[in-house]
């Protein structure tokens, strides 16, 4: 990377150490990886210790500190992608490019690997090609892709229809049919003023749509009342929960409402600056969103002196780089500050000590959009929808074994059965109500209602029909959490790894009831001892699945007694290869039982009489 180009990037980012992650993302996009020399140059330019730059560069999945090929293909590997056959397609692509998954091809041309859910479960299987999303993969598309890669055709010149992303909106309600013009809500809010708007939000009893369900008015009020030399509004568009793609649709087709919501939040808490933390998997939206923000600035709907009311509020979009943990608000803020996404010690909470230590409100995309709607329609109107404890509507991203995967907007209180019916699910065996980090409902629970007081959800509804192996679902989740754990605290860092290994042990037919007890032990350990929500929720779905679909696990238990996790015979592979031996003694496979009999026989023969051990003279102890 010529220093001139590096200087250009650093200049554009005003050599601001807080923008370290954004700088690294641009460098990664240009060079395909981040060589050590680049890390050193960036560290010097930003006046940061090189170790700090290395710790950020090595944390995020989409930043590579080792060569990853000119083409970096990442297959989305959520359980819904598996159900749509992504593994076969990946093997096919690897076959055509003569490489193994996870490795770079000999000539450094291409690497193929997996990544966590890319938010395309309604039009999967999907992959990221150098960070750009390609949906609806099929064998022909894979064949042509291999062809394009071998002929070194730039990703930008690949067939445009590959990159097309549908909204798949299936059921609209008050939010998706809001009918407001861009800036309309903002104008109303500016007209009514902060106190009145806060009153509306309070009357609406709006709760966070990211999944935690924290009262938005409480968050905004405590943020406004916190002292600080600057206040910030952050739109959490990380949307990393597997099976969730509602924010994708809001950003793609309702962006103005979201921006209005951010400006309203800014006005309410007295902030002049907002950030949108856009997940790296949605990079394809970046230019479109930046253009729209620029237009709004021209139209006086953003930036200085909005609508002539003297209110200044501007928005910066920061990209994530592949880290599910950055959905946690304090980890998101760490990432916004150019650091690895490791959750902070809480308290203090972001509302008092957030971005740059200043009072910050972090709200989900959907929450901000609803706030704008409430500013116009009023709190009472909103409160009349849904249930008393869960007011308003909820966007549900429904995927998996359904006729019509997509976005369904329902008032809170809708039963799971109604949602499944609307989506055209049949013969449903199970549903995960909050992606990998929530509960798993069996058929007898579909009467339960989607609401914070019953089935709480961030919007990810993944449906599994009777043909699905629920063990594989649990195993996919276990690997997801082991891959996404930030590694900060012992129970989650090592606990998720142990869980993933236990799942692999069962999958390799080495399982026994002992291993199911170990999983339950990990569940108990991580509940309450983990540093953040990831560790505390990493085993909930798994624990549910083991409890409600035990046969799917029992089928996997190879023996009632404890078995080793590793394959005994395979453990002799290197020795066999080096010695060239293949005689029975060189194996530990199915001859184990036979050898045990033989030894038992030898033992009985060796002892003439069942006398006490001392009598038999050792020197005459010759086996026949």
């Amino acid at each position, binding site marked *: 990377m010529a220093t001139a180009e590096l200087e250009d990037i650093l200049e554009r980012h005003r050599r601001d150490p807080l923008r370290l992650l954004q700088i690294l993302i641009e460098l990664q996009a240009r060079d395909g990886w981040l060589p050590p020399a680049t890390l050193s140059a960036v560290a010097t330019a930003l006046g940061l*210790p090189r*170790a*700090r730059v*290395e710790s950020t560069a090595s*944390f995020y999945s989409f930043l590579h500190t080792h060569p990853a090929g000119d083409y970096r293909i990442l297959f989305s590997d959520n359980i819904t992608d598996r159900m749509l056959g992504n593994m076969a397609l990946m093997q096919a692509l690897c076959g055509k490019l003569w490489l193994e998954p996870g490795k770079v091809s000999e000539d450094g041309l291409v690497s193929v690997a997996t990544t966590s859910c890319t938010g395309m479960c309604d039009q999967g299987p999907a992959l990221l090609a150098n960070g750009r999303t390609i949906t609806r993969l099929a064998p022909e598309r894979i064949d042509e892709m291999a062809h394009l890669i071998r002929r070194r055709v730039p990703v930008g010149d690949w067939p445009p229809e590959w990159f097309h992303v549908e909204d798949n909106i299936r059921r609209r309600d008050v939010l998706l049919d809001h009918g407001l013009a861009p800036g309309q809500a903002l104008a109303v809010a500016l007209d009514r003023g902060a106190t009145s708007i806060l009153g509306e939000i309070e009357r609406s009893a709006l709760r966070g749509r990211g999944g935690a369900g924290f009262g938005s008015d409480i968050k905004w009020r405590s943020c406004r009342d916190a002292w600080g030399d600057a206040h910030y509004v952050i739109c959490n568009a990380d949307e990393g929960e597997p099976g969730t793609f509602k924010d994708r649709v809001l950003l793609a087709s309702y962006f103005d409402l979201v921006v209005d919501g951010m400006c309203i939040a800014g006005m309410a808490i007295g902030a002049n600056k907002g950030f949108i933390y856009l997940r790296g998997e949605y990079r394809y939206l970046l230019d479109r969103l930046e253009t729209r923000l620029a237009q709004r600035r021209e139209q006086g709907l953003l930036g200085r002196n909005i609508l002539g009311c003297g209110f200044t509020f501007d928005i910066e979009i920061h990209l994530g780089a592949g880290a599910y943990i950055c959905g946690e608000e304090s980890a998101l803020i760490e990432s916004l500050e150019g650091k690895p996404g490791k959750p902070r010690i809480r*308290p203090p909470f972001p509302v008092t000590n957030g971005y740059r230590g200043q009072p910050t409100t972090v709200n989900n995309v959907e929450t901000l959009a609803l706030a704008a709607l409430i500013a116009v329609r009023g709190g009472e109107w909103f409160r009349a929808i849904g249930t008393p404890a869960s007011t308003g509507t909820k966007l549900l991203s429904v995927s998996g074994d359904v006729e019509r995967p997509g976005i369904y907007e329902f008032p809170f209180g809708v039963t799971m059965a109604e949602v499944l019916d609307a989506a055209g699910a049949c013969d449903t065996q199970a549903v995960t109500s909050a992606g990998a980090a929530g509960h798993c409902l069996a058929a007898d629970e579909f009467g339960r209602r989607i609401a914070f007081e019953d089935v709480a959800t961030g919007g990810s509804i993944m449906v599994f029909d009777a043909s699905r192996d629920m063990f594989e679902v649990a195993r996919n989740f276990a690997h997801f959490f082991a891959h996404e754990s*930030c590694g900060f605290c012992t129970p989650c860092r090592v606990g998720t790894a142990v869980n993933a290994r236990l799942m692999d042990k069962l999958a390799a037919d080495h399982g026994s009831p002992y291993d199911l007890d170990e999983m339950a032990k990990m569940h108990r350990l991580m509940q309450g*001892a983990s540093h953040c929500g990831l560790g505390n929720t990493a085993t909930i779905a798994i624990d549910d699945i083991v409890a409600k679909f035990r046969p799917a696990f029992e089928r996997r238990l190879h023996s009632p007694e404890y078995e080793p996790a590793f394959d005994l015979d395979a453990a002799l592979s290197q020795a066999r290869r080096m010695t060239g031996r293949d005689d029975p003694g060189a194996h530990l496979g199915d001859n184990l039982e036979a050898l045990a009999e033989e030894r038992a026989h030898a033992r009985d023969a060796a002892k003439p009489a069942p006398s006490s051990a001392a009598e038999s003279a050792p020197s005459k102890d010759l086996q026949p």
Partner: protein
Amino acid sequence: MNDSFLLDGEDIPFTPGQTVMQAAAAAGKYIPHLCWHPDFAAHGSCKLCTVKIGGRFATSCTVRAAAGQEVENRTDELDAKRRTLLQLLFVEGNHFCPSCEKSGDCALQATAYEMGMLTPHFDHFYPDRPVDASHPDVLLEFNRCILCELCVRASREVDGKNVFALAGRGTRSHLVVNSDSGRLADTDFTASDRAAAVCPVGVILKKRLGFTVPIGARTYDLNPISAMGANAGQQADSRANAAHEKEVG
């Protein structure tokens, strides 16, 4: 009368702003811990200091003490949870105590003794981690790193050098040093840095001090870590004292 809270039924006074751990340590009461150290900002990652306050789990090194709190500390349930956490740490790295010069001065080992850990229980990871002997006076043996970041904090907060940082994510997390080559020799680290005498395990070791103190005379041979009371947080290294006596004596 300033405020106080109950720790296993005992009254512990505290001054406002103190965490439960700080107040307990000041009162000479031992709460198991690995990543906490009285001289540095709390970290809250090892989770050994998990207690129960009013029936809810809490990380005692980060949670503020409050009047009237009822804190459960050395209960069977919590010590069992701590044993499991220790087992996870033991299988994640390579901890070969028999040939380790920090044995007997190692907080991980002493805490495991205190919790009565007899087996690592889980399947070992046996990771492949490097040894960096490049620095003339200090050895870095990453096999024993428990990612407590005491060295990171010491080097940043006291030495002002930022020699250490954690890189990677999840179980790929690992310690890195602040040099282009990645070697300790190419940093401004010296054996007299505060960060050189803070490692609770056997990663950052001053050279030429190995096995100077005979078995039986090392810090935790003499008394268990729980008996170290307030200075339980001090990273014990009888080898340093031995070397000091040698120079002074």
